[in-house]
């Protein structure tokens, strides 16, 4: 018995020892079997491209008077109602943990390998694109200390002045463009924009440089000239084949479908009967009236009405198109007869999203010529821009977006750059720009703030947050006050109150 007792004590003792020794397999137990410990830069880069393109502030379609809704919540963009202002922070909150952090992961993974210089350059250029979209809408944003939550335990990054962000973005574009080397490997097919083509990445970098350089005309015209000249010397996008765009699929995962088309469909137009639009959305009267008044052949490509409220019975007839005024607070009686986005073009799930077009490049070049910064002939550049803008709908939908060469030429001939003062010509260029850049409302919003064109009349809707003035920026998330208090307060103290009327650096 005694011996048995000893054996048992021994057994328990051994048991205890084995158990504590058992922590050896803890690391394996605490390893997620469905995840990996290192990144595949290609896969993260593709994700960053999708996310960067998809992160847009849809309400800007309303602000730029392309669309509106009789519903206060969905109509915020076109009405700037005070009670809805905080919905405008969505693109800020989405940008960092998605596109921006992803591109940072990619940069960290490839930056130390000289063989991966093209991957690094593409990632740096894409980071500039994503940050420029963000800072243009919100002003000062975290930049130099951002996305270091994991690598630097930086949970409360400082907001950087937009002036510094712009200086760094332009420097990044310059360095990245010159570092591209056609002899070295690329992201290849993982690069949704250019399939790894370094020559095209270079054009995209200089096109972005032109865009961002021109942004500075109001605040620092000398810097604007320096960067615009440099960009033009480097070579910008002028051919349709070089347009920066992402292609999408008609079905499958949502991330693989055109984000603008998907979002508009899901939020409003999926019933396709002109009547039961969930969020009460329609084209705005200002936009449709302008296209009709200028006999614009794009009207029938962009816009439809539903005949008799029957699903999918669309009518693109010029005479039938009419937009909805932005001052309604209830569903109008003629709602079903009003124009909305064409399901075969603007709402086409497998249409590409255009990130930088030849048309935009030509309009910016026109301005550079008007300012005497280049030897190009402004009227020719302008006509090239108009022509490219009419052609680009065929890229969006080869079957339903194509205009005949005849119609394009006719419109171009009827819409030439008319001689006049610099201001008059600017008005002409950037009114055409507004029509041509649709549906990229954010770029229209930036150009409007910089040039004042098109000469839109702000909506003085009851209860608006701006006293009936045009918004100059959108709001930081309220959560930043709680989660990043000191940095947020410093940004407000420097830039001005977190309101729609505070102007960003380049809009001063």
């Amino acid at each position, binding site marked *: 018995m005694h011996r048995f007792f000893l054996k048992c004590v021994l057994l328990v003792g051994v048991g205890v020892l084995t*158990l504590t020794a058992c922590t050896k397999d803890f690391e394996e137990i605490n390893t997620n079997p*469905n995840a990996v410990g290192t990144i595949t830069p290609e896969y993260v880069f593709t994700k960053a491209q999708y996310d960067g393109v998809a992160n847009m502030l849809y309400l800007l379609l309303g602000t730029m008077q392309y669309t509106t809704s009789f519903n206060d919540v969905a109509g915020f963009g076109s009405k700037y109602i005070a009670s809805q202002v905080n919905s405008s922070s969505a693109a800020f*909150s989405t940008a960092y943990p998605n596109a921006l952090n992803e591109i940072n992961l990619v940069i960290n993974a490839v930056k130390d390998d000289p063989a991966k210089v093209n991957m690094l350059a593409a990632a740096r250029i894409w980071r500039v694109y994503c940050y420029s979209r963000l800072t243009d809408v919100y002003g000062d944003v975290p930049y130099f200390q951002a996305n270091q939550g*994991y690598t630097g335990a930086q949970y409360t990054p400082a907001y950087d002045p937009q002036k510094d962000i712009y200086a760094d973005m332009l420097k990044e574009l310059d360095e990245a463009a010159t570092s591209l080397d056609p002899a070295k490997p690329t992201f290849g097919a993982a690069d949704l924009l250019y399939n790894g083509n370094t020559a095209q990445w270079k054009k995209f970098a200089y096109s972005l440089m032109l865009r961002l350089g021109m942004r500075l005309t109001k605040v620092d015209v000398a810097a604007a000239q320096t960067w615009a000249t440099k960009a033009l010397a480097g070579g910008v996008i002028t051919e349709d084949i070089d347009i920066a765009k992402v292609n999408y699929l008609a079905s499958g995962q949502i991330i693989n479908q055109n984000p603008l088309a998907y979002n508009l469909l899901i939020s409003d137009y999926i019933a396709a009967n002109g009547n*039961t639009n969930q969020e009460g959305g329609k084209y705005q009267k200002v936009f449709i009236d302008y296209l009709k008044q200028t006999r614009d052949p794009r009207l029938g490509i962009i816009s439809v009405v539903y005949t008799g409220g029957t699903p999918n019975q669309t009518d693109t007839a010029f005479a039938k198109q009419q937009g909805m005024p932005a001052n309604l607070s209830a569903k109008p009686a003629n709602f079903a007869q009003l124009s909305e986005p064409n399901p075969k073009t603007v709402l086409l799930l497998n249409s590409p999203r255009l990130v930088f077009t030849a048309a935009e490049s030509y309009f910016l070049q026109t301005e550079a010529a008007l300012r005497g910064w280049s030897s190009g002939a402004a009227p020719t550049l302008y006509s090239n821009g108009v022509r490219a803008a009419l052609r680009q709908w065929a890229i969006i939908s080869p079957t339903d977006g194509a205009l005949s060469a005849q119609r394009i030429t006719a419109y171009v001939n009827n819409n030439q750059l008319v001689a006049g003062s610099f201001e008059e010509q600017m008005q002409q260029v950037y009114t055409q720009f507004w029509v041509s850049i649709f549906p990229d409302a954010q770029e229209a919003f930036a150009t409007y703030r910089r040039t004042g064109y098109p000469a839109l009349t702000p909506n003085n809707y*009851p209860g608006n947050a*701006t*006293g009936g003035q045009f918004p100059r920026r959108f709001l930081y998330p309220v959560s930043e006050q*709680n989660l990043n208090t000191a940095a947020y307060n410093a940004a407000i103290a420097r830039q001005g109150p977190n309101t729609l009327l505070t102007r960003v650096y380049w809009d001063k």
Partner: protein
Amino acid sequence: MAQYNIETANKRPSAGDALANPNWSPYMIANSADVRWLKPGYDANGYETVWNDASVATNGYFVVNKFQQDDRKNRFIGQASLSYELAKNLVLKGTVSQDHYDYNYRNITPTGTLYALTGQYAGIKSDVSETNALATLTYNKQIKEVGLSFLAGTNKRRSSLNELDQAGTGFTIPFFYSYNNLASGTTLALAQRQDVNSIFGSADFNYKSLFFLTVTGRNDWYSTLSPSNNSKFYPSINGSFIVSDVVDMPRAVNLVKLRGAYAQVGQGAPEPYAVNLTYSNVPSSGRPLQNVSSNVPGSGLAGITNANLGPVLSTTTEGGLEAQLLDNRLSLDLTYYNRLTDNDIVNTTISPTSGYNSVYLNAGKVRNRGIEALVSGTPIRTANFSWNTSYNLAYNDNKVLQLVEGINSINLASTVGNWAYINNTVGQSAFEIVGTRIQKDENGNTVFDAASGYPVATALQPLGKSVAPLTMGFSNDFRYKRLSLNVLLDGKFGNKVFSISEVYETRLGLLKSTLPGRENGLQLTGVTSTGDAYSRLVPVSGLRAYYDNYKNYSELFLHDGGFIKLRQVILAYNLPAFQISSFKLQSATIAFVARNLLILMKHTNFDPEQSFSNSNYQGLESIGLPRTRSYGLNLSVKF
């Protein structure tokens, strides 16, 4: 021991925001409309009928009639143990137990739902188990007047979860609700495992059954923590002493007992994989995609892991007094405690500008201290009638003493729209409600933004405790012959509640506070931010937007969350069992049980207990259901 349970449910009600919330339409429909006008919630084609201009606010009848939700849990609990007396009073015991369940869940947002016209699918299939292997060795011995008992043991606990999450949108064939019929569907696999290894021991002593002392010690090893910091030893000591048996007491005193304890308890991370950052594939129909893994399964939000994650330790010091007086008809129980929680593991929300939405932190030190008192007595005791009464009161004072270095405040929860937050801030109570107020100048005038014409909102500030510091219960038992009546009241005091419902009700003009100005507009007066006098007439057409803007001032929706409720009444009749003694019945009781009968005191338009979650969201009310009043009959028999 083996036990098998099947639990099935369908159409569990959802609360929260407007989407798919059946409570939304009855609460939010205009006061002049009858909610039954929304019946049946769908049209001839089976599509949701529009009832307002916000498509996300689902018609309640459509939710009830067309939404589908069902779940089923098949649960098996088994335990086997073997004990062997090795020697006299020395027992070795081994126990293996498992609690295992299979879970199936399906939630259909049907075709025709306005906010998701082609429908949505969500499904979960999982198997979850917890297995424990325990071995103990116990020894008992009585040496004269000293009783001794010792225990040593070891335990291994393994928890595992294997889950498939299916989600998708768009039913290709309308109204046919199969995963295979989705235009876009994704299945994600989730597997979680965690182990806790433990050794422990305890020793009990008692002297003449007057003085008791228990000493314990335990060491745990947690697989969910950093390999360099995954072990924690924690002791406890617990003593009690019956004073009245040693010291002479007045005759009125029957018993006086003192007790004291010091105890520590360790804890690991609740979720695995919080130590090393990983990357997961993102479902794609095109090129492969990858991003940082979410640290909250299923949230899709990128979170930061913590390579140094260590154990939580809570230390409680407690003292108490128990007394029986007046022939045991009055008793008193008092407790004072002080509990410090150190290195609490919190998945903290952080600014997205860090690149991530949250981070796992060992977040500082929180103190809870308080007193609990229980007085009970029997004022009347006769052969046929008795009345027992008891009253308990508890006060808990909690305070965040310290957080992580460089962090003064962490966010635990927030409302939709960020109208209010629940924060832990150093120096304040834990789970403090934080939000904005209307800016006032030193004379109490409202400060207006001259450009927008709206009052200026202050910076975020603490608005009150979300967890009630003071709670009480009052129970009375009356017995007359075979009839007994129990009446229970309870109450909570000192907490605040933020009402998300009222934000919407204000927007929709349903509250009295939105009446001023409806005839001739609303005259506003105050000062501008530069101190000049300001006045403006909000026209009737601008009132809706004006009142809707109230949501930017959290204080307007904040209320005292205290209440007193008549929680329960039980009327019972003890059947004369001896008359049916042929069934060998010992006793039989039939009882009428009613719960949640009345709210005797409250300061809100709603049931202050209808917060939408019990965890960090206490203090945020959102279009939920009040506690359900229930009546039941209960028959219990003993053989």
